[in-house]
């Protein structure tokens, strides 16, 4: 990949500066990061920007269409839902739940997967064998069926869903971290650190982690997006987050019987979820492009 150097690149820039420059030119990354930042901001500022209480129902004012319909009105810019709750406020508060699910599941599965993957890659041998075996077992179990069975048997709640999805979706972390660690382990400075007798935790924290961090971020974004979508699928089957909590996935699935005639009830949360997942995916792709420009895969 022989890049043609622009004149101002002739003064050898640092790798960090190169990366920053690539990042600033990467449209997908910028859009993804921008949208994600906006959603995060919305989640934090929910009480300040939401026009109404997202739980306040008024059966006398239900199914008001959004403002761009003839019968819409400004007191509910995005209309009201089937129980007369302000849809805009529920969308704003819903960002909290969807982000929370994405982040928390990613954190749980990331911790498990990264720990297993790094251990396998770093120690190799029997540890590697055991981890590979665990990964294979995990991959063989159909995630959605197992998640459904557990949630159906134990009873659905936000934290149970996060826990179950987290415990089920660590495989990609483990696979990627394992191979990334294997590559890093062979590098000279890691060998050197070992030779001078650095402790294992110190090598992992000081040498391995920083070098696999990029790969970790890429997987993390994919997993976060995946978890948000999976929760929507669970909601569709009635076993996701429980109402009246406003998760976007739940809003979509509660609106499904309105899709033929009041399509906005499903397109608004659907569009929001779509934008969020798309943004997270774009961010992940962008990070990969910027950190390893030679190989998108």
């Amino acid at each position: 990949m022989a890049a043609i150097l622009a004149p101002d690149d002739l003064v050898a820039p640092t790798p960090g500066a190169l990366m920053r420059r690539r990042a600033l030119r990467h449209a997908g990354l910028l859009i993804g990061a921008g949208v994600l930042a906006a959603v995060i901001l919305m989640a934090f500022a929910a009480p300040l920007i939401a026009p109404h209480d997202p739980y306040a129902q008024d059966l006398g004012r239900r199914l008001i269409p959004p403002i761009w319909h003839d019968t819409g009105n400004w007191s509910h810019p995005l209309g009201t839902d089937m129980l007369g709750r302000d849809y805009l406020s529920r969308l704003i508060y819903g960002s909290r739940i969807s982000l929370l699910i994405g982040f928390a599941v990613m954190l749980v599965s990331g911790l498990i997967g990264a720990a297993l993957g790094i251990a396998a890659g770093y120690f190799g041998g029997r540890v590697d064998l055991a981890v590979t075996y665990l990964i294979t077992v995990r991959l063989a179990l159909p995630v959605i069926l197992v998640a459904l069975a557990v949630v159906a048997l134990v009873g659905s709640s936000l934290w149970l869903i996060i826990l179950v999805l987290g415990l089920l979706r660590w495989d990609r972390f483990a696979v990627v971290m394992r191979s990334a660690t294997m590559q890093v382990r062979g590098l000279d400075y890691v060998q050197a650190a070992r030779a001078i007798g650095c402790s294992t935790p110190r090598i992992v924290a000081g040498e391995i982690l920083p070098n696999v961090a990029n790969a970790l971020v890429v997987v993390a974004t994919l997993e976060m997006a995946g978890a948000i979508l999976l929760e929507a699928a669970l909601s569709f089957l009635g076993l996701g987050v429980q109402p009246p909590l406003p998760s976007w996935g739940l809003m979509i699935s509660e609106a499904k019987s309105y899709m033929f005639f009041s399509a906005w009830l499903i397109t608004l949360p659907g569009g929001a979820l779509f934008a969020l997942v798309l943004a997270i995916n774009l961010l992940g792709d962008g990070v990969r492009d910027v950190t390893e420009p030679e190989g998108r895969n």
Partner: protein
Amino acid sequence: MTAGRVVLAIAITLALAGTVQAGKRDDTLRWASNQVPESLDAYFNNVRIGVIIAHHLWDQLIYRDPKTGQYKPLLATAWKWTGPKSLELELRKGVRFHNGEAFDADDVVYTLNFVSNPANKAVTQQNVNWIEKAEKIDAHKVRILLRKPFPAALEYLAGPIPMYPNEYYAKAGPKGMSDKPVGTGPYRVTEHQPGRLVRFERNKDYFKESPRAQPTIGKLELRLIPDQNTQAAELMAKGLDWIFNVPPDQAKQLRAVRDLSVVAGETMRVVWLAMATREGTPTPVLKDIRVRKAINHAINREAMLKTVVGESARVIYTLCFPLQFGCTDEGAPRYAYDPAKAKALLAEAGHPNGLDIDLYAYRERQQTEAMIGYLRAAGIRANLRYMQYAAMRDALREGKAGFAHQTWGSFSVNDVSAMMPVFFKFQADDVNRDEKVRDLLDAGDTSVNPNVRRSAYKHALTIMAEQAYVAPLYSLPVYYAHSKELEFRPYADEIPRFWETRWK
């Protein structure tokens, strides 16, 4: 652009192959359900669709006219009580089962003795466990002996107790009966793919003397379509002729679609909030009558009825369906919608800042959500625990759940003895355990004197309302949407009658 042409050709072929036109043209009524009966044997399933199928395949001894509520002869031509625990029935002659077997006393005796024997594990024991045994008097006369006086016996004989052919049933058993059901009813099964589809054909030899209408539609095809939206889509695309349990809002919208009719019918299923007050309840706050009254005052039943429930139903003030024998709300206090009063009652009970409680539910989640909204406005923060019926019932029985959005359909039995005793006679589902109520129900359930029964039930219902043991809410409607080519009439027992449905 050959590829484009291939795609087009494929699309056209598929379009031609794919369009199924439902309806009148091939004399097949296509309908759908979102649940499947675990078995077609009426004694071995406990889902609504199973009851519906059973009414098409089999006949009962007695017929209850859904319009007048009167009992009429069906497979039995006459019956009389020969004692408080003994009922004698004359049987109709000349009726044949779908397989040609003639109907006689042996069929009745075998069916009743088989299903009432607990060892045979009929799923809904309370439908049959009042029967001690059945005896043959002669070829067309039988006697049914009861375990104890049971005034609602005729109601059960007219409902969930269809008659089976003894020779076939002895050989095939419940499994064979599910695979290839054999009855005397207006329709017979031609194909059964478990959990997928059932095909029916008109019974051309259905006995002419039956008080039920002679069937006119040639074939019925029942398909399992789990997602309600898919059912609506199929109906609009004419892949189906008839669907039920349409959500009220969608029903309103489907009304506007050309070629479709939407009808609503009230059902016997009533809805209430159950509040456990018995020893060891997981929700001790509910032991305070002021909290229970506050919950009663918190919910706007009328507003819910007009919106999320549907207008064909009615508000109820006591725990029974108003048309059931023994049901009344006379003399029982009513708790009107009054959030301010609810808040005041809560404060008086020592909860000025409201309280948190788990609310269990298993169906019509949108209604639960509306209840949660109302409770929240009164200061009760209910946390939804939504689960399958069996799991919720289990939690209530074991004292893990104390507050629940309950419903009960009384198995379409038109007598309060199919409803109140289940929840107030110290059986597993009784979460309140009031001795006075129990004794009154006992008196009502076992007397053969209608006036004694009425007054006992009325007294029990009054106590239940005074104590606010439950928050009775409303009866449930069911919405049916169907092709305009069909002439269909709904009844309160939630059983569509395709034998009297016809093409226009």
